[in-house]
């Protein structure tokens, strides 16, 4: 299990600092962490920094090794990042896209091993029916599933998923998050998932990181991180935290924020 440690993280776009003073450590192995916050708060930039694709100040370490000092390949062996954008609509078929993602990183694996891993991923995600379909002829949701398969096939310790369900319908959203959860638990790894759907995050994540006001507003179990006050501060809406008949917490939004101090 790779240990992630974030200290005094600062993320800026040019001279514009968007996130600062972020310290997050001691992530529970086997946990799924929801990354939430309003548009433009820096969720994607945060994940891109963790993936080594965006510059940052402060420190991000994997097993004590500073992220920016790791080579692309060293990082890719531990961390897999799913971008917000969908895989390009190319003439690659899904199966080729997935094995190329695996072969580009895992030079140590034999062809048979790669094919076994690939087959398992297509089964897990229930996408065998599109295995030999070109990406150019797939729907957005199908391409998103292929992108996810490209991540999962590498069996990373840490998954960084930027809105992995943005193009999926309800059934596939739940399915994808269940698969990610199972993988993370089995491997005792870690998944950080940027999501816009608060209730999806509340239901599927072990803890939440809520960004707002240029930093982390709250971090912890969903019920404690997503309070009405935090909802108001992060999204400028008034809402309530309720409990459904199955005992799961969920958020009901009543309307736009009326608390002037938080505008």
């Amino acid at each position, binding site marked *: 299990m790779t240990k992630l440690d974030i200290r005094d993280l600062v993320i800026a776009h040019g001279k514009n600092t968007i996130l600062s003073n972020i310290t997050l450590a001691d992530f529970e192995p086997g946990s799924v962490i929801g990354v939430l916050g309003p548009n433009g708060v820096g969720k994607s930039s945060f994940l891109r920094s963790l*993936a080594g*694709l965006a510059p940052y100040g402060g420190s991000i370490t994997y097993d004590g090794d500073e992220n920016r000092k790791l*080579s*692309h*390949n*060293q*990082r*890719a*062996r531990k961390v*897999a*990042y*799913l*971008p917000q*954008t969908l*895989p*390009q609509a*190319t*003439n*690659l*078929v899904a*199966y*080729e*896209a997935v094995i*190329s*993602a695996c*072969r*580009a*990183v895992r030079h140590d694996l034999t062809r*048979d091993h790669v*094919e*076994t891993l*690939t*087959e398992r991923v*297509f*089964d*897990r*995600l*229930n996408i*065998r029916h599109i*295995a*030999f379909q*070109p*990406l*150019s*002829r797939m729907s957005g949701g199908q391409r998103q599933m292929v*992108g996810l398969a*490209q*991540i999962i096939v*590498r069996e990373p310790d840490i998954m960084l998923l930027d809105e992995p369900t943005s193009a999926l319908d309800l059934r596939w959203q739940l*399915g*994808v998050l*269940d*698969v990610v959860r199972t993988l993370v638990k089995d491997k005792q790894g870690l998944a950080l998932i940027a999501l816009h759907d608060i209730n999806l995050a509340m239901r599927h994540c072990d803890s939440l990181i809520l960004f707002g006001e240029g930093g982390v507003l709250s971090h912890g179990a969903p019920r404690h991180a997503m309070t009405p006050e935090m909802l108001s501060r992060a999204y400028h809406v008034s809402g309530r935290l309720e409990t459904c008949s199955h005992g799961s917490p969920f958020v009901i939004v009543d309307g736009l924020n009326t608390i002037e101090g938080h505008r």
Partner: protein
Amino acid sequence: MKDQTTGAAHAAPSLSHQYRAFVFKRIFWLCIFLTALIVSFVANVITGPAMLSFVDVVTGILDPETLSGAMKVIVFDVRLPFAVLAILIGATLGLAGAELQTVLNNPLASPSTLGIMHAATLGASVAIVFQLDQYGLPENYIVPVFAFAGALCAIFLIQMLAGFYGATIDTVVLFGIALVFALDALVSLIQFVADTDSLQQIVFWTMGSLARASWEKIAIVSVVFLCCVPFSIRHVWKMTALRGGEDYAKSYGVSVERLRMLVLLRVGVLTAVAVSFTGVIGFVGLVGPHIARLAFGEDHRYYIPGSILAGAFILSCASLASKSIVPGIMIPDGIVTALIGIPLFLALLISQKRRG
């Protein structure tokens, strides 16, 4: 998610089994392309003003003693070098175009996009106008050497600027376009001051021709081509991964900018050596990869050999057409490839559009 389909998954053949059949189809098409290339090569060798039959040519190649002195010269010093160089240059431009389209993520990219062909034209124009063959340099090689030097300068400039400002797609394409315009202006300036003979030579050079084919030129192009191919093979997985998108490739551990710099260098050298001996031959590097993409998809293990074969086939057919359209006159290959290439390219675009 798996639970819902467990039964179906067990009933279906394994994906790796289906993949074998899928790969077999691609290899089958590669064999078809190779056969077509061999046919065009044979047609190229047996076609020409000297009336030699197929049997005469084949027997002559297998046993040169069966040919008379003049026929031996025609077969071994004219037709064979011409046909072999057509295949080699086509293969070289096909490879260069395929790799360039991937690293620039642009199906309209071709070896002329980066200004390398224009730089070669400038080098050749300088050698022709300033009559540098007067200074003791071998006459046959002075224009190719200067064309190659011009192309190398363009590669060096692009590498330097990309290294300084970052080898992003936008940077490379914008530098390439700027270079094309600047070099065009310089070539025009040289043409403006050139005398009539030199002007004619420059114009002929820009039309592209395989007519000056020789075994020495074939050896040089072969060495460069064979030196570049192993690097292309080495990068097939990374290049395939790059087709999913730059961010995806980076997340797989591919150093995209480094890969792009290496590929640009490779493409530059391949283009430089090809055009320095033949002049400007367009469309092969654009259309070859398009045909390969339609036939083999974009897994670079098949797309790259497919582009090489398609490029070689197009130029082989173009060179055959160049000497067959008007008997006794060899139309420059650059003109024929453009005339064949434009309708072919449009047909491909329309068929792609129809396929959605």
